[in-house]
């Protein structure tokens, strides 16, 4: 519960700060974009790990910052070498994001369908009990 509150408060404060902070030069906006994609990938990875019950905060934090910094460095290297390395980074990160989203989606569907099955089973059980009660 406290984690959810912290996340929501963090997001709201972040939006407020972001809307009031000065904009960055256009030259660096490409680097920021790739860092955001990397961070988002880490977030989805973290959610998947939580669902699989093997979430480790240290891995999550190191992935969050490490991936962002690494992708910025690779993008810079790509610009020096005149190769669009950031495209590779985007393909990897977004591909992984879709994978993680699929896992999350499956988990949620299974959870809800399991609930439904239990609910219907309980209803049938009640009906049967009522019938038995009437018969007796």
């Amino acid at each position, binding site marked *: 519960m406290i984690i959810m509150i*912290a996340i929501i408060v963090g997001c709201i404060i972040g939006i407020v700060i972001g809307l009031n902070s000065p904009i960055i030069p*256009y*030259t660096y906006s490409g680097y920021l974009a790739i860092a955001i994609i990397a*961070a988002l990938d880490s977030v989805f990875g973290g959610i998947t790990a939580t669902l699989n019950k093997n979430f480790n905060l240290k891995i999550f934090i190191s992935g969050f910052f490490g991936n962002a910094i690494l992708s910025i460095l690779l993008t810079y290297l790509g610009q020096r070498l005149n190769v669009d390395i950031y495209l590779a980074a985007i393909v990897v990160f977004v591909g992984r994001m879709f994978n993680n989203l699929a896992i999350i989606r499956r988990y949620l569907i299974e959870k809800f369908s399991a609930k439904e099955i239990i609910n219907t089973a309980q209803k049938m059980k009640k009906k049967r009990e009522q019938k038995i009660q009437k018969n007796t």
Partner: protein
Amino acid sequence: MNKKQVALTLGIMCLLLTVGIAIQVRTISNTNSTVAQTLTENGLRDEVLRWKERYDNLYSQLEQAEGNLEKVRQQASQDDTSASSKEDEIKLNNMLLGLTDVTGTGIIFTLTDNQGVTTEMVTSIDDDISYYLVHDSDLRLVVNELKNAGAEAISINNQRIVSTSAITCEGNIIKVNGEKIGSPFVIRAIGSPELLYGALTRPGGPIDLFNAKVITDIKKANKVEIAKYTGIISSKYMTNVEE
């Protein structure tokens, strides 16, 4: 690690992420958002934006340096009367050169393309749609007339007319001081309002000529503000003649 620490770290990370996204979105929406057709076009656009950024940075540096120079000059001329008269001279010369913002009485004259005229309306053989647009020659005529009437400072769409200014036709736009400007053309001039007004509105004068073609609007004003010249006046080839 207890739960509070976990919540704090996650909160801070969410904060960083959303700050990044918000800044990025604002940066992108602030820059020119026309969708480029091809990769080359995209690259060229990037290049232009980068150069513009560099130019803006340098220009702000220049302004800062000018401010510093002004301060130094003031300090130097504080005690010395002859130096302070020199300082006044420098100020006056800068004003005459068009290197400072100036204000005073004058007129504001607006020339607008006549957009009411369409190609279908232009039927006779010696008529042309381009007669109903403002041309560089029209602007030159007005500037010439204003100078003749004793205008001390003139600007067209905030481009100050200085001794090196050129008004040229560049296809479908007009360039003043090498900067593109377009309709409506707002010409501000400082001088005697009556003289300037009279020079433009006299029978057979510029407004008489224009009224048949384009839309004109002239106003006398008690306070006309004219921005300074933002370019560089170079003196690479000329030297003083020693007497």
